[in-house]
């Protein structure tokens, strides 16, 4: 691929930093703020793009694993629907990002319904609570790592690199 995605991102950042920003007067505050955010987003995208499909597929696999952990202990009223949803999720082609995102919405929506338990009418087994917390902890770590470049995470020094996370 010529020019490469990395080169094009780098070129855009250079143009924004060296041409667009200096052309804006101090009065153009909104424009300056937004150009700086554009640069920040582009730097982050440069770190992420090659891993994007694998990252989302990993999120999806983690969600399927959560559903499978829930399956033996959910209320019988949900058991069949959850089993079907897991089967459908496993049939999704993992390389198609849009398809994966769509499948996350479908399976995640059912998991949400089970957690809410018809607005508290259906009890959740302690094992489900633990499974959701474990999943939440792992997924939060992945997403914090993915977006660490924003600099907003107070504990970002403890996070691995994106490449390190994806390799692990």
């Amino acid at each position, binding site marked *: 691929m010529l020019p490469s995605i990395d080169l094009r991102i780098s070129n855009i950042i250079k143009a924004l930093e060296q041409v667009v920003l200096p052309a804006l007067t101090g009065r153009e505050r909104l424009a300056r703020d937004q150009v700086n955010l554009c640069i920040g987003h582009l730097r982050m995208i440069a770190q992420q793009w090659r891993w994007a499909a694998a990252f989302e597929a990993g999120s999806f696999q983690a969600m399927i694993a959560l559903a499978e952990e829930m399956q033996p202990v959910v209320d019988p009223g949900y058991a069949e629907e959850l089993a079907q949803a897991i089967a459908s999720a496993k049939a999704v082609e993992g390389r198609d990002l849009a398809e994966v995102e769509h499948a*996350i919405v479908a399976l*995640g929506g059912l*998991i949400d319904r089970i957690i809410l*338990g018809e607005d*508290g009418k259906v009890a*959740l087994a302690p094992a489900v609570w633990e499974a959701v917390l474990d999943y939440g902890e792992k997924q939060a770590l992945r997403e914090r790592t993915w977006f660490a470049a924003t600099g907003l*995470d107070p504990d970002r020094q403890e996070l691995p690199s994106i490449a390190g996370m994806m390799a692990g």
Partner: protein
Amino acid sequence: MAIDMSEIIDAPPIDRIDIWNRDDMEPRIREILDRTVRDRVKGPYAAKTDSEVIAMLERYFARTEGLEAIGISDVARMAGGASKEQFAFTLRHKGDGVGERLVLRMDPLEAISQTCRGREAQVHVAFAGILPVASVRSVDADGEIMGQPAIILGFVNGVTEPSEGTGHGVSGIGTRYDDWAAKLAPQFIDALAQVHRFDWRSADLSYYAAPEAGTRQAAIWQVNWWSQVWWDGVVQPVAMVTYAERWLREHAPICDAPVMCHSDLRLGNFMFEEPSGKFTAVLDWELAHIGDFHEDIAWAIQRLFGTWTDDGTFLVCGLIARDEFLRAYEAASGNRIDPVKLRYYEVLNAYKCAVIDLGQAMRAATQSNNHQDIILTWLGSAGAVFLEQLVMLIREA
């Protein structure tokens, strides 16, 4: 620790509050949230230009005050504004050739938090003379004249972070106050105490409603508010957010004595003058409501709003060590902090932030309904920080 939910479901009722009644919330909040969904399809929204702002203001002052020969000048967009479009401007007219410096604070079609300018105006007026707050010049609560809900405030001089310092960030996050902290911390704590001591019963707060004392309604109103924001706008399911909602409903504490809560009193939301450090304004009252004082304390001590000293000490809002802050607040307010309630509201606030970042911000940006969609996606990238907080806080609760 594992929670056996069947024990909670079978537990006798603590009070008459139905923790799953999603309709139980402040009426004005309900109106704002319903309006958000109704208006969402009107987008996309573009940032207003100076000339558009001038035309809007000229029409507004002519219609609302009958001013003649109106001149709007020196229009300057103000910094920050992840939520509202804000412009400083000077108003001159036939009866005032000198001019008045004012601030227009106006809703975009959809913001990171959807709130009421009428409530904001009322709470500004209520706190005039108690805390430094901007004066209210005019309010168009539903945008009937301006075209968009708006409040016009008196201009206040000051800065939200030191002009020269080592840390600056989006919406004040990450600001380091360093040597300024000794001057600012006492005023910050006093402001919190003053807000909580305020006699809201004797003020004109007709846009507000108060939860019933001695019940869980204060907490449930907040859960209902933010869970409706989530379900009205959810872009992608997040199991931890749903989990937290159920936990918050089933662990809601009783609020013995509801107080006025600012709900966003943190670094970046007060202005001070340099070099004295004297507060000139407490800002951003848009989330204010009557509720449990623990909510404000839990908000202030969030890790995202704090900084660390070089030796690793966490400073609440970049100002003061956590234990010292809690002691100083108790002394200033006369309130006694209940650690269980404080932890509950830490969970609630992490939930609220997750809903704002991963729910409302993502929905507004997806619809292209904000003047700064790019800030919304930037802040949304911090959503997982709150998911991690939810896991940690609930495990420790």
